Structure formats: structure tokens, C-alpha cells
């Protein structure tokens, strides 16, 4: 990337297969643009996302991590996102306690029908993270190129 | 229609803490009301009129002062709407309108009765005198 180009944060988005990944597909089908910085990783359910994956992403230079799942009550597996909600509430609170900007992490519930919400969420999240600048506090120095 | 008197409407909703949209129009409040016969507007109408912002007629109606605040409507409402609190909020709206004066010190001597506690008169004056 050239030096002149504007700063583009790296964003990792974990999406559950049944709601949010389908919501992302719908955003695509409707040609609703969101920044290319967002890269989606498909997981069966938001509850598959281990806090370790999120920390790993930060360690390897991600500037923001967002986790999308079915709305509470709509989980394909009935209860997965309820566990996600608790796990992420505690993890995010801990990251904040360690002095990491709370805007770098987010959980958003996006249904398969909410293509527009998916795109809007990604736009907003990217902007928020871009405003924070590079993630210096959680990066693994080895991986700098 | 819902825009009519919007400021007053939202002020009354805020003051009463009642959400009139929760009303499913069953009429159990009106069925329960012991002061029904003396009222021009009945509890369910109160709720609907506040919801639709049609508050002016309520403020001008004597019904406001016929409500006994017995809270039967609040107790019975299946949706937790609490009509009596709306009535009270509209009453306060009337009171807070400048110049409105429902009780004058001069009229008190005529009210004094043996059965009526003095405290009731004092608190009524506090509330209804501007």
C-alpha cells in the first residue's frame, strides 16, 4: 500500500453461517457497498468464536474485530448466541480494563434478512476503527511487514 | 391527527410514565370505573385521546375532577397502561397552565365542613391554586 493512500484499518468479521453470513450475502446481492477492509470468516454459530480467535486477530495486526450472529432468540442452534453474549460481554469488559479501546471490538446481531443492516454496520464499524488509528496496543511486533 | 398538540402529548406521557400505545382497547378500565356515570370522558377514552394527542378537550372537561383516583383501572388493566396516572398528569397540565386557578382562598370558607379534614383543604389549595 502506498504511503499516500488514506489509512485503512484491518477488520476481521466473524459471521455465523445461518443469519449474519447470509445477511452479508444479501448485502452483496443488493450491491450494498461496505469497505474492502472487512474480511469475513464463516463460523457455524457465533458461539464457535473463541476469545482466543479475537485476541489472535489483534495480535496479528487486526485493528478491529466484529462478531455477528443471529438475533437473541433466533439462533439456529437455539441458544448459541446467548452464550456468545455472555462471553463477549466479559471479554470486552476485560479488554477495556486492560486499557484497550472499547471501540475496537463489537458484537452485532444481523439476521439473514438484514443485508442493509450488515452493510451499514460494517461501514460504521470501519469508520469508528479508522478514527482510532492503528492498533498499537495489541499487536504482535513479529508480524509487522 | 397524531401530530396535534404533540408537545403537550409528549409532556403528559413523560410526566405520567404511561405508554398509551400499550392499550389494546379492551375497555376493562371503563368497565371497572366507579365514577363512570359522572364522567364525560371515560378512562379508555382518556387513554385514546392522549395517545392521539387530542388533549385539549380533556383539559377542559370536568371529567378530570370526577376521577376518584381509586386506581381500579390501574389494577385491572391487562396491559399495564395505568389510566389513572394519565388523568393525574392531565390534571397537572391544567394546573401548570398559567392563570388557571381552580381554587381561590376566598372560596375556602364555604367548603369548610366538620367532616372534611383540614389537611385535605390545605393540600387541595396547594395543588389547585396558582
Amino acid at each position, binding site marked *: 500500500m502506498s504511503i499516500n493512500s488514506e489509512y485503512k484499518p484491518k477488520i476481521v468479521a466473524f459471521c455465523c453461517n445461518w443469519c449474519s453470513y447470509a445477511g452479508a450475502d444479501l448485502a452483496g446481492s443488493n450491491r450494498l457497498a461496505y469497505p474492502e477492509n472487512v474480511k469475513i470468516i464463516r463460523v457455524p454459530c457465533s458461539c464457535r468464536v473463541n*476469545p*482466543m480467535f479475537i*485476541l*489472535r486477530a*489483534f*495480535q496479528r495486526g487486526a485493528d478491529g474485530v466484529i462478531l455477528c450472529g443471529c438475533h*437473541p*432468540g433466533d439462533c439456529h442452534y437455539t*441458544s448459541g448466541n*446467548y*452464550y456468545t*453474549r*455472555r*462471553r*463477549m*460481554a*466479559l*471479554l*470486552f*469488559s*476485560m*479488554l*477495556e*480494563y*486492560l*486499557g*484497550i*479501546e*472499547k471501540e475496537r*471490538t*463489537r*458484537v452485532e446481531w444481523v439476521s439473514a434478512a438484514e443485508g442493509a443492516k450488515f452493510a451499514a454496520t460494517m461501514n460504521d464499524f470501519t469508520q469508528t476503527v479508522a478514527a482510532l488509528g492503528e492498533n498499537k*496496543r*495489541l*499487536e*504482535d*511486533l*513479529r508480524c509487522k511487514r | 391527527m397524531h401530530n396535534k398538540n404533540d408537545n403537550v402529548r409528549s409532556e403528559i406521557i413523560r410526566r405520567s410514565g404511561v405508554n398509551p400505545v400499550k392499550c389494546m382497547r379492551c375497555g376493562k378500565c371503563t368497565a371497572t370505573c366507579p365514577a363512570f356515570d359522572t364522567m364525560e370522558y371515560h378512562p379508555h377514552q382518556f387513554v385514546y385521546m392522549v395517545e392521539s394527542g387530542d388533549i385539549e378537550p380533556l383539559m377542559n372537561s370536568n371529567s378530570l375532577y370526577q376521577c376518584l383516583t381509586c386506581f381500579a383501572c390501574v389494577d385491572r388493566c391487562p396491559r399495564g397502561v395505568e389510566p389513572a396516572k394519565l388523568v393525574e398528569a392531565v390534571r397537572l397540565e391544567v394546573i401548570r397552565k398559567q392563570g388557571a386557578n381552580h381554587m381561590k382562598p376566598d372560596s375556602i370558607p364555604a367548603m369548610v365542613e366538620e367532616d372534611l379534614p383540614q389537611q385535605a383543604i390545605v393540600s387541595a389549595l396547594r395543588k389547585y391554586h396558582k
Partner: protein
Amino acid sequence: MQKITRENLINKAIELLDNGTVSRVLGWKIGEFAYDVTPAVFTTKEDLQKDFIFDDFCNANFSKYLIAETRKAEEKVLVFLKPCDTYSFNQLLTEHRFSREKVYAVGIPCEGMLDIGKIKALAGEGIIDVIPGEGSITVKNLYEEEKTLAYGDVLTERCLSCKSKKHVVYDELMGEEGDVIDSNRFDEVEKIEKMSADERFAFWQSQLSKCIRCNACRDICPACTCEKCVFDNPKSSVNNKAISDSFEEKMFHIIRAFHVAGRCTDCGECSRVCPQGIPLHLLNRKFIKDINSFYGDYQAGQEEGSRAPLINYTFDDLEPGEAVGRGV
């Protein structure tokens, strides 16, 4: 109240060994110096009389040792448990880590244990003996000097914020039962929460960067009882023996705290054993504080079989977005 002494415990152990209730005794063994007490397994009357000790340095929580010890033989193991140890004991029972039938648990009272680090800081090196007194201790050193220190100044950090003097489980209790204490143990966490993000980051960066990845915290922790830790498992992709970068130790400690979140009984062993003096318990305690405020008070180990908050939920739990930025 009659004070429970070393002799009381030895007699109890011998009685249980003699009548065949137990075949092994988990107890504290006297060390070279008064303060270096180590955990040990005793099997004979003679060993007990010679080496068993019960004093103000009997910090070690034996709960975790039971996992390995109960696997070794069919007969029961005798274990002495201080009030805080009983919470760990219960939590391990909840997680089916050992069989209750294979343990004979004797609850013993605890008035707080001493921190040799603090004593050395106040009395200097070369300590050869520490003699307990009323509300104070007398320290003797190589140079035949004596120094008297107040108890409150030399108690371990965890005992200063002791949460309970009540045993939640035992087969037999020696001495009198105490109460659960309102200990203000979250004050320190709150202090950090009130700092600015930069200050918090600086605080933790300075603390965690001291970590040498000796794994003492993990090895002592009665909740960290995994047969194999993820950080030792090459298949986990996060295994690492040494610290290789500025984030590695944060990753380790966040994940470690997360893995014990809802299971940590706040026994404070992690901070006690840390050779670098990192206040690791403040990570665990942050999780406990959050759990209490998000999902209602929960004390791990208080009740056997209770469902830990992270393997539970309600339909109207707060959203992760609401969990952050509270009162900071």
C-alpha cells in the same frame, strides 16, 4: 476459643490413619527455614510427628493436589482445608475432577497467613525464625537480632481481603466455624477501572511485561487443572513456551483468566506464587466483579453442582456493547 495447634492436627491425622479411614495425609511439611513450608503426602505416624507443621506459613491450598493423589490408590486421602480452600474443593467437585468418596476433608480455622516477602522487606534478609505472638510476630535473624512486626503488616494480600472464614464443605470441622466476610475485595479493581484508558494500559503493560512465563500461576491455580493446557498443546496454534513479543503475555493472561472466569474462587494463589509480583488476582477479580454486576452475585465453589455463569444464560442478559464503558 481454643486455638487449633500442630499437635491437634497430627493427632487427628494419626487417629484417622490408625483406624483405617485414610491411608495418606495431605499436609504441610517443615522446610529448611521456618517460612518455607511445602505441601507433602504423609503415610506414617513417624513422618507426621517428625515433619508435619501447622503455622502461619501454611499457605498452600491442597484442593488441586487431590486430583493426582486420589488417582493413586483406592483408600481415602485426608486433607486439611482452610475456609478459602473449601471453595476450591467444592468447585473441583462440581467439575468432577476427583471423587468425593475418596477424600476425608477436615476443615481447620485460619486467621490469615503470612507473606515472607513482606517480612523480608521489613526485617531484612537472613531470617532464621519467625515466632508468632499476640497481634505481632517476632523475627530472628542470623545476626541474633530480633524484630517485632505487626500482623497486619505482614499478612498476604489475599488474606487482607479475605472473603470468608466459613467452610462450605467438610467431613469434620476442627475449631469453631467463622462467617462470610464483607471484604471490599473489589476496591482495587475499581481503582483501576477509574483510571484513564492510557493509565490502565500503562499499568498493565508495566505489570504484565514482568511476566517470565514460568507458569507458576497456572500450576498453583486450583481452577487450572486441565490435563493439558492449551498453551502447551501444539495443536492449539497458541502454544508457546516463552514470551516472544509484547502481546504474548497479555494473550496468555487474558485467556488464562477467561478460562477460569466463573470457576475462579478468588483464592489468590496466583498472585501469591508469582515470582515477579504481578497482581494477577486483579484480572480474575475483574471477571468476578463483572459477573456479579452483569448476572447477579455468584461465588464459585459456594455450592457443589452450581452452574457457572459462562455456561449459563438468561434471555435478557446485557449486550456486550453495554458491558463496556460503564462508569469509566
